[in-house]
């Protein structure tokens, strides 16, 4: 029969190997695929604060990319999502505010559902008044 000391030593060796394997798993495992497209979404808040979001996504449209980051909220409409809130700031309809979306400074003609995105694109959003 194995002595108590042998059992303790073998148990400790096994425990150390398991710990080493767990550490290797944590530190050596590559991150999950961050998404095939990288876009920048720049939000200009009403107080002038500008925030850039680097988004990695596999989403086809802008809505999917922004919802993936929990950046937008709004109302569903026949034309898709009507965005009323971005990055925690809601457009105040009483003050005739709305969120205007642009791409490289050019106003988008489509909603977030119909705006198809590609790698390395740059989108902006800011509060505008109608």
């Amino acid at each position, binding site marked *: 029969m*194995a002595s108590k000391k*042998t059992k303790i030593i*073998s148990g400790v*060796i*096994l425990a150390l190997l*398991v710990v080493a*394997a*767990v550490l290797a798993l944590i530190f*050596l495992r590559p991150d999950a695929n961050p998404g095939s497209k990288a876009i920048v979404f720049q939000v200009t808040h009403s107080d002038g604060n500008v925030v850039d979001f680097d988004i990695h996504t596999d989403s086809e449209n802008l809505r999917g990319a922004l919802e993936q980051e929990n950046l937008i909220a709004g109302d569903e409409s026949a034309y898709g999502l009507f965005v009323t809130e971005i990055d925690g700031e809601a457009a105040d309809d009483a003050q005739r505010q709305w969120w205007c979306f642009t791409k490289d400074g050019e106003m988008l003609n489509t909603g977030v559902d119909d705006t198809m995105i590609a790698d390395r694109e740059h989108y902006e959003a800011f509060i505008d008044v109608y």
Partner: protein
Amino acid sequence: MRPSSTSTKPELRQLALLSLMGALMFALQVAMASLPNIHLTALLIILTAIFFGWKCLFSVAVFVILEAFVWGFGLWWLCYWYLWPLLAIPAVLLRKNRSAFLWAVLAAVHGLTFGALCSIPYLFIGGWELALSTWVSGLSFDLVHCAGNFTLTLVLFKPLYRVMDKLMGMYNPR
């Protein structure tokens, strides 16, 4: 218990028993295939090593050959030719030991290092980067393998040892 022989040349009766042990390893591995890396192969190799000594390598060979007929011939299969003997060899060397805990530790270490040992050929195919990435990608399965081997061996070693001891007395009288 009947002490295992140091001879490596099995008699016909032993050859039949060794083949059956290999077939049993294979059958249980296939039966438990739905459980990832949880099987009784390590425990059966240990028991075969205890009762048959170096002849247990015959059972291991039967097991490895049968594996290929179900799962196909891949690089993993070539690895099996050294992976399972790497468990059988220390098991034969330690075969006088009857501690379920120590056998459980041996089976667990074998399960834990299975992926690392299996990635050795990749060192020569794609360098250390490929070998390391192959090992790391399967590490979570190695941990399951380790836990499964440890638990099953710890729980089942003694009852299966008693059964085999009894059967060896019936079928392999000396």
